[in-house]
C-alpha cells in the first residue's frame, strides 16, 4: 500500500521496494518546526480576525475557513522544509575467482604414482568426504595428517586414481569447504574445459557428470582449450576485477590460443594464473610417435623421406623399432630411448603407383607401456603419388645460393622432366653478351619467345632476372601463358633486379603478375652490390612468420597440424634482405609475413592470374631453411610449391572447378576452398559471393565463397566441425555439378604426451603473477590470493514534496476556501 502510494507520488521503485531501509529526512527542518509551532497561533489569529470581519457567518463555516488557512500555512512550511526519503543500502563487490576444470581425454590418464609427501597432501585435500573409501584409515584428517603415514590401502587407492578422479576428489571435498569459504571473498565461478569451454554450477552438477557431455558428436573431450578458457573468463568478467584463475589440469594445451597470451602476460591487464597439477611428475610408461614429417605429393618412383619424432617416458635405455609400411614398401629403424627427449628417426620408401597411398608408421609396443597410451604409437598419412612429370623452366639472374640448392632439388625430383631448362643471365654476360642484347641471347639460348613456347612448360620460375633479359614482349608472353594457358609461375625476388627494376610504364605485364604491390625500394647503399629492396636496421634481422593461410598452404605443409606447421616455419633462421613489398594485391593470399623493425610486410604471397597461379617468394635466403636438417624443409617447400602452382588440366579450360587444400584436416581446423565459376557461356562470373553446399557430419551450413578480385575466382576458409568426410558441391550456371571431398580426422593430440606439464604450468604462473600449487597445498589458496569483497554503501534519495499531491492539496484547500466564501456571498 505504502509502496504504491510512494510510487504514485513519483518515488522510484528501488526506494519504494525496500521500505525497511528507507528513512524520511528533511532538507531544512527549521521550517518544519516553524510550521508545527506556528500553526496553532496562526489558526487562532485567523479565527480572531474572521470573528471580527465576518462575525455574521456561522461558526462552523468560519472554522472551515480558518482550517483552510492554517492548513495552507502548514503545507507551505512542510514544502519549505523539503521532505525527502533516503535508501541506505550496503552492497558487496567481489573480485572474480575462476576455477577451470580440465575434463579433456588426457585427464583419464593415471594421476600417480605419488611420493609419500604428495600423497599426504592429496589425502588432506580430498579426505573430508572420503572416509568410506579410505576405510576410516585416514579419517582423523586435518593438518594432523601431515605427519601421519599414509595407510597402504589408501596409498594404492590414490595411486590408481585418474587425473579426473583426483580433480573430482578435490572438488567433492572442497566445494563445501575451501571454495565455499572463498566465495565469501570472491565471486567463484567454475568452468569445465575440453575442446570448448562451459560454465558449470558445481553445486548442482554431479561431479561424476563433469566429463560427460550430452552431444559427443563434436568430440568435446578430444582437446584442451586452456587459452580459450582463460579468454572466456576475462570476457565474462569485463568491468570486474579478476583475483585469479585456478586451473585444475594436467597442463596440456592442445587447441586455441596460447594460455600465456590469453592471460595477457606482458600487458598491463595480466590475469594471475594458479595452476594445480592433477598428477605426479612421473608419467605412465609410454613411447609415443608424436610427429611425422613427410611430403603430401610426390611423383611415382620418388624416394620419399619420412622423419618420425618419438618421445618416451619410463622406458629409458630400451630399444624401440620404428616401422614404416607403404604398400609393399617397408622400412624400419631402431632407436635407443632417452627419457623425455624428442628423438627423430629417418625412414624412407619409394613411392609406388599413381594415386592415393597410405603410409603407416608405428613404434613397436614395448613391455610395460601403459595400454591406454598404445594408440599414440602409430600414425597413418595419405600420400598423393602423381603420374605426369612436370616441365619446369628456370630463368635466373646469377647463381645465388638459393638457385644452387634449387638446381639440385630439381635434379633429384623424379616428378620433373630432366634436364630442367635453365637460362642464366650471368652466364650469358660472362660469354660477352652485351646488356642490350640479353633478350635475344636468352632466346638463342633456349628461352621461349612467345606464348606457345612458354605454354610448353607447366611451371616457370623467375629468379633475380633483369628487365633487359625479360623484355616487355617476353613479359607479355609469360602473362598470357599464365592467364590463358594456366602455366604456373613462381617469382623469387632478388636484390639486383626483381622486382624493383621493373617499371610500371614499361613492365606492366610483369607487375600485373606479382601478387604484391611493390613499395618504394629501400635506400640505395653506396656499396655497389646492395641495390634495393629492404634491409633491417641495426643488423636486427628479419624473421618470417606464417599467416593462417600459410599454415595450411600446400607449399608449407610439413605437418598436418597447421599450428605445428607454423611453429616449424616460424623458427626458420633470420635473414637480412627482402623485397620491398607494401601490401598484397586485392584477391591475393598472404602466406608469410616479414617481421622486422619496420613492422609486418608481405613476404610470400600467391594469387590467381586468369587460369594460372602465381607465387611470389620475397627474399633470397631460403637456403637458410637447410640449417641442421639439410634438404628436408628446403626441398619440401620448393617441390610442393612447384606442384601447387603447376598447370592443372582442370584449371586450364573454360569450365568451373572446385578444389580444397589441405585435403585432410583435423576437426575445427581450417581448410581453404577455391572455386572457379563460369557462366553458361564459359565467361568467369563476377558475383561478389557464391555458396557451396556441404554434406557431412553435423549437417553444416552452406559455405559462402568470396570473390578474390580475379574474375571467376572465389575463396573461403572453412572448418569441418566433426570427424568424417565432407563433400563440397557447387552447381555452375551450365548445370554441371562440381564436387570435392574434405576429410576431417582426429589427430589424437590429447594422448600424444602423457606427462603433467609442470614446467609449462610453472612458467604460466610465474609470468602472470600466480603460483603453481600442488594439490596438497591448495588449501593455502585463500591466504595467497589477493583481493577481498569490498562493501560499498549505496545511498539513493528522492524528494517527496515536489509532486502532484502537494499541488492537489494546495489547489483543494484554495478551492474549499473560495467555494465556502462564494456560497456565503462573501468577497
Amino acid at each position, binding site marked *: 500500500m505504502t509502496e504504491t502510494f510512494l510510487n504514485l507520488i513519483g518515488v522510484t521503485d528501488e526506494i519504494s521496494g525496500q521500505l525497511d531501509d528507507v528513512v524520511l529526512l528533511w532538507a531544512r527542518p527549521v521550517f518544519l518546526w516553524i510550521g508545527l509551532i506556528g500553526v496553532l497561533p496562526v489558526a487562532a489569529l485567523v479565527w480572531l480576525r474572521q470573528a471580527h470581519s465576518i462575525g455574521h457567518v456561522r461558526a462552523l463555516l468560519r472554522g472551515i475557513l480558518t482550517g483552510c488557512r492554517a492548513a495552507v500555512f502548514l503545507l507551505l512550511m512542510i514544502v519549505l522544509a523539503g521532505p525527502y526519503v533516503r535508501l541506505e543500502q550496503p552492497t558487496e563487490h567481489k573480485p572474480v575467482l575462476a576455477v577451470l576444470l580440465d575434463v579433456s581425454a588426457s585427464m583419464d590418464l593415471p594421476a600417480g604414482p605419488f611420493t609419500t609427501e604428495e600423497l599426504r597432501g592429496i589425502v588432506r585435500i580430498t579426505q573430508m568426504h572420503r572416509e568410506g573409501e579410505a576405510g576410516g584409515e585416514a579419517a582423523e584428517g586435518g593438518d594432523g595428517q601431515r605427519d601421519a603415514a599414509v595407510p597402504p590401502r589408501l596409498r594404492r587407492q590414490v595411486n590408481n586414481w585418474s587425473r579426473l578422479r583426483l580433480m573430482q576428489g578435490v572438488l567433492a571435498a572442497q566445494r563445501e569447504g575451501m571454495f565455499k569459504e572463498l566465495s565469501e571473498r570472491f565471486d567463484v565461478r567454475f568452468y569445465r574445459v575440453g575442446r570448448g569451454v562451459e560454465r558449470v554450477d558445481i553445486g548442482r552438477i554431479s561431479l561424476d557428470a563433469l566429463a560427460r557431455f550430452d552431444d559427443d558428436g563434436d568430440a568435446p573431450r578430444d582437446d584442451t582449450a586452456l587459452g580459450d578458457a582463460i579468454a572466456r573468463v576475462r570476457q565474462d568478467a569485463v568491468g570486474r576485477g579478476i583475483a585469479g584463475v585456478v586451473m585444475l589440469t594436467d597442463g596440456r594445451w592442445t587447441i586455441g590460443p596460447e594460455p600465456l597470451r590469453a592471460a595477457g602476460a606482458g600487458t598491463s591487464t595480466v590475469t594471475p594464473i594458479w595452476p594445480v597439477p592433477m598428477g605426479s611428475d612421473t608419467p605412465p610408461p609410454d613411447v609415443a610417435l608424436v610427429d611425422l614429417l613427410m611430403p603430401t605429393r610426390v611423383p611415382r618412383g620418388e624416394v620419399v623421406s619420412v*622423419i618420425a619424432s618419438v618421445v618416451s617416458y619410463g622406458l629409458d635405455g630400451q630399444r624401440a623399432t620404428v616401422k614404416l609400411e607403404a604398400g609393399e614398401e617397408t622400412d624400419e629403424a631402431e*632407436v635407443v630411448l632417452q627419457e623425455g*627427449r*624428442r*628423438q*627423430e*628417426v*629417418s625412414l624412407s620408401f619409394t613411392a609406388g603407383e599413381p594415386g592415393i597411398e597410405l603410409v603407416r608408421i608405428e613404434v613397436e609396443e614395448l613391455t610395460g607401456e601403459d595400454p591406454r597410451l598404445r594408440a599414440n604409437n602409430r600414425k597413418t598419412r595419405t600420400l598423393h603419388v602423381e603420374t605426369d612429370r612436370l616441365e619446369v623452366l628456370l630463368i635466373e*639472374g*646469377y*647463381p*645465388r*645460393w638459393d*638457385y*644452387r*640448392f634449387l*638446381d*639440385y632439388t630439381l635434379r633429384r625430383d623424379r616428378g620433373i622432366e630432366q634436364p630442367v631448362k*635453365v637460362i*642464366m643471365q*650471368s*652466364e650469358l*654476360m*660472362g660469354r660477352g653478351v652485351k646488356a642490350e642484347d640479353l633478350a635475344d641471347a636468352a632466346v638463342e639460348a633456349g628461352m621461349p619467345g612467345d606464348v606457345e613456347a612458354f605454354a610448353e612448360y607447366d611451371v616457370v620460375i623467375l629468379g633475380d632476372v633483369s628487365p633487359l633479359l625479360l623484355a616487355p614482349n617476353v613479359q607479355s608472353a609469360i602473362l598470357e601463358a599464365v592467364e590463358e594457358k594456366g602455366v604456373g609461375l613462381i617469382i623469387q625476388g632478388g*636484390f*639486383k633486379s626483381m622486382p624493383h627494376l621493373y617499371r610500371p610504364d614499361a613492365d606492366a605485364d610483369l607487375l600485373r603478375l606479382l601478387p604484391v604491390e611493390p613499395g618504394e625500394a629501400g635506400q640505395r647503399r653506396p*656499396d*655497389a*652490390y*646492395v641495390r634495393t629492396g629492404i*634491409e633491417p636496421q641495426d*643488423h636486427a*634481422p628479419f624473421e618470417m612468420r606464417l599467416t593462417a593461410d600459410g599454415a595450411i598452404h600446400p607449399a608449407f605443409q610439413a605437418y598436418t597440424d597447421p599450428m605445428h606447421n607454423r611453429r616449424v616455419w616460424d623458427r626458420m*633462421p633470420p635473414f*637480412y*634482405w627482402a623485397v620491398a613489398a607494401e601490401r598484397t594485391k586485392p584477391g591475393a593470399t598472404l602466406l608469410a609475413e616479414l617481421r622486422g623493425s619496420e613492422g609486418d610486410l608481405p613476404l610470400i604471397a600467391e594469387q590467381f592470374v586468369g587460369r594460372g597461379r602465381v607465387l611470389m617468394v620475397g627474399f633470397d*635466403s631460403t*637456403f*637458410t631453411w*637447410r*640449417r*641442421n*636438417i*639439410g*634438404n628436408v624443409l628446403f626441398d619440401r617447400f620448393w617441390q610442393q610449391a612447384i606442384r601447387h602452382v603447376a598447370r592443372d588440366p582442370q584449371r586450364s579450360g573454360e569450365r568451373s572447378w572446385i578444389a580444397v587444400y589441405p585435403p585432410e584436416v583435423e576437426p575445427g581446423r581450417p581448410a581453404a576452398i577455391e572455386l572457379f565459376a563460369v557462366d553458361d557461356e564459359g565467361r568467369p562470373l563476377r558475383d561478389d559471393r557464391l555458396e557451396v553446399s556441404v554434406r557431412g557430419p553435423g549437417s553444416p551450413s552452406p559455405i559462402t565463397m568470396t570473390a578474390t578480385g580475379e574474375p571467376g575466382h572465389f575463396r573461403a576458409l572453412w572448418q569441418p566441425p566433426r570427424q568424417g568426410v565432407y563433400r563440397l558441391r557447387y552447381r555452375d550456371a551450365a548445370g554441371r555439378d562440381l564436387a570435392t571431398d574434405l576429410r576431417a580426422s582426429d589427430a589424437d593430440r590429447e594422448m600424444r604426451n602423457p606427462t603433467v606439464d609442470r614446467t609449462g604450468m610453472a612458467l604460466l604462473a610465474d609470468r602472470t603473477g600466480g603460483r603453481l600449487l600442488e594439490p596438497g597445498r591448495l588449501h593455502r589458496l585463500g591466504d595467497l590470493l589477493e583481493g577481498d569483497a569490498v562493501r560499498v554503501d549505496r545511498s539513493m534519495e528522492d524528494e517527496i514534496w515536489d509532486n502532484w499531491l502537494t499541488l492537489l492539496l494546495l489547489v483543494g484547500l484554495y478551492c474549499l476556501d473560495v467555494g465556502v466564501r462564494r456560497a456565503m456571498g462573501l468577497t
Partner: protein
Amino acid sequence: MHLPDPDEMARVEAAVDRALEYLVRHQQEDGSWPSALGNNNGVNAVCLLAFLGRGHVPGRGPYRIVVDRSLRQLLASQNDAGLYASVDPSHGPMYEHGLATLAMIEAYGYYPEPALHRSIQKAVDLLVRTQNNQGGWRYHPRPRDADLSVTVMQVVALHAAMNARFEVPDETMAQALDYVRACVHDSGGFTYRVGSGGPAPPRSAAGALSMQLLLGTQAEGELEDPAIQQALAYIERSRYRPSQSHFWYLNYYSMQAFFQAGGELWARWHPRVRDFLLENQNPDGSWDGYSEVRYAGDSKCYSTAFGAITLQVYLHYLPAYQR
C-alpha cells in the same frame, strides 16, 4: 639416420659464433688474417669460408664489413695468369689457389658482379690449364706432376664452379676422377701420389670426398664407388687424435666425406669430431694448431677457421658441399 640433437646443434652454433668473433678480432686492415706463413691466401680463404658457411654472405648482416674486406683482398691478389697469389705463399701456391677459388665462387652467389665473374672464370681456366696429364695438380700452377692433397682442393673448387655454372670442361672432371681413382690403395684409403707411399687418414678423407664430388659430376655412371667405403672404413679404423699429422685437414675433409656418405658411417664419425671440437675450443673462441701449428702460428686463425668450417657441416649452408 638419426637427426642431430637440437641441444647439440645449439652448442655447435655457439662454438662457431665464438670462433667467428675470434676471427673478427684478428682480421687485418687489408682484409687478410695473420698466420705463421704471413699473409697467405689459403688462410684468408678458409677464414672467409668460415663466415660464408655460417650464412654471413657479402653485403649483409653483422659481418658484412669483415666479409667484404676479405673478398676484396682476395680479388685484388689475383695475378694476370688467374692465380690468387699470396703475399706470403707456402711451398704450394696451388693449395691456396684452390681454397681461394672455392671461397670466391661461394661469395659470388651474393656478389654477382662482372669483375668477380671474370676473376673466377680466370681462376677456373687456370685450373683447367694446369691439370697434368694424369688428371691431377701439384704445388705450382704448372701441368707437370700431381698429388692427391693438392688435387682435392682443385676438385672441390671445380665442383663448386660447375654448381655455379662457370665453364668447366667435362673432360677436366673426368680426368680428375681418373687421377683420384689411380690413388686408391689396395688396403683401403688413398695414397699421396699415384703408386707412391701408403694411405694416411687425411689424404684418404680428401680422396673419398673428391671421388664423391667427381662421381656426381659425371654424365653417366654410378654415384657410388667401393673405394669410398673402403677409405672411410680405413679412416674409422685409424686413431682420431690431434697429434695426427694434418689434423685440421683431416677434420675438414673427413666431416665432409662422411656427411656425403651418410647413414651409419656419418652417424658414427661426426660425434667424434664434434665432441673433440666442442670440448677443446679455447675460451677466446679459437682452436689450437695442434699438428698444423706451422701454419696456424700464434694467431691460430688458420686452425680456428678450420674448426668453424668443420662444424659448419651441420648447417648445410655452403652450396659446394651439398649432397
